[in-house]
């Protein structure tokens, strides 16, 4: 079910997301090969979350196209959804259900074929197996995020989106997240939104800076000089609240 997609993981052409006069995304172009790790930076209101929303089919484009693994975000939305996962700063979990029940629920939603096996596997890898019968309400922030990772990976997505995943995490949880990403790095494509410049650059194979809905910079990692980048980033963030 989860071959790495052939061709490009992400293809965005002339993407516009606007309502009336206000443009959240203004003619964005982007091509990301499969297996890449994209870090998206930018000031608040730059359109980062909107871009992720379009790519994860939560919002549709006003103009232009976006494709993930060759699937169009509008026309092939339903198929696309089973190939992507989202780890957000919100855990996206039901507080009154246990960890196991939460995962069972999402396994049903995604039609996961071997739910019990898969759930055990994931709970073990996020080190939450001993808490699986506890209501999520009782979890700490770090544990919530770990369970959220399990939720996101349940259906073996090809492309994993991360929306400020490290925010509010304790070091232990951060390590787990890091090691999980390292484990699946090979077979997956990642798109991460982050305010953490160092972390973002460290992990990425490509970097994108957005400001006011426009692409300020999009380069593969090799071509980026860390100091120049940091300067540009600071300049953009400093001046660019939309």
């Amino acid at each position: 079910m989860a071959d790495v997609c052939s061709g490009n993981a992400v293809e965005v052409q002339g993407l516009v997301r606007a309502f009336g006069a206000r443009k959240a995304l203004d003619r964005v172009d982007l091509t990301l090969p499969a297996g890449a790790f994209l870090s998206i930076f930018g000031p608040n209101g730059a359109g980062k979350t909107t871009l992720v929303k379009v790519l994860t089919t939560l919002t549709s484009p006003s103009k232009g196209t976006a494709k993930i693994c060759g699937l169009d975000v509008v026309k092939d939305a339903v198929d696309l959804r089973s190939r992507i996962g989202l780890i957000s700063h919100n855990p996206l979990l039901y507080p009154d259900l246990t960890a196991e029940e939460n995962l069972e629920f999402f396994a049903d939603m995604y039609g996961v074929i071997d739910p019990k096996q898969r759930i055990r596997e994931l709970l073990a890898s996020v080190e939450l197996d001993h808490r699986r019968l506890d209501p999520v309400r009782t979890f700490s922030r770090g544990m919530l995020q770990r369970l959220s990772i399990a939720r996101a990976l349940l259906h073996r997505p090809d492309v994993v989106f991360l929306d400020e995943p490290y925010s509010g995490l304790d070091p232990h949880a951060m390590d787990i997240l890091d090691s999980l990403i390292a484990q699946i790095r090979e077979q997956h494509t990642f798109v991460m939104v982050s305010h953490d410049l160092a972390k973002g650059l460290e992990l990425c194979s490509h970097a994108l800076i957005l400001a006011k809905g426009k692409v300020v910079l999009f380069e593969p990692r090799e071509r980026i000089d860390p100091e120049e980048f940091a300067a540009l980033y600071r300049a953009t963030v400093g001046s660019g609240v939309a």
Partner: protein
Amino acid sequence: MTKNRLTMWFLGLGGLITTVTFFMAFFYAPPSLFRDGRIDFAQKIFYFHVPVAEASFLVFFFTAFYGVRFLMTRRKEFDTKARVATEVTLVFVVLTLITGDLWTKFEWGAWWVWEPRLITYFIMTLLVIAYFVLRSSVEDEERRAVYAAVFGILAFIDAPISFAITRLVPSGFHPVVLKSGGLEPPMLLTFIIGQIGMLMLGYAIFRLRMGEEVTRERLETLKAALED
């Protein structure tokens, strides 16, 4: 500038026709008589009440229509048109209630009667008010437009259902009193002219408001462009 001319024509003509209707109602159309021969003066209100009631319903159709168009295209202009159409509906619905209420007072002596048509228009007033309250309580622009469109469509479906159902379901109150079946030609003529006049006025008001909205949109676009 032809657009504005057209609006002015409609406004002027509509106003003129409505005034003519007023005079026709009193001087041209023969008085309606009760069975015992008394003149039913209050019936004159009919020439305003029904046109404005029917006009309000027609404009409400446009609320739903533009709502559908918006949902299909997601273009902001359709949301604006739907909103303006609803504003015009509000004006007409309130006028309907007022004229209807006056008529009720003259006919039955009470200021309010739970009679099918009045109930239906009361419900419509509530629906239109709900539309605006809904709009003002949603912060995100696009979500506001989507919600308003959906509710507008539901409300438009609901209005005629209310009317049909209040007629069907038995209630203990006054049965609907209809006067003699048909309208004599002079009355019919007055009525039709009144209807046309009201519709023209409605359209003119719609265009006037839309003109304001379009200007406002242009201003917004300019502001946004300046910020870049």
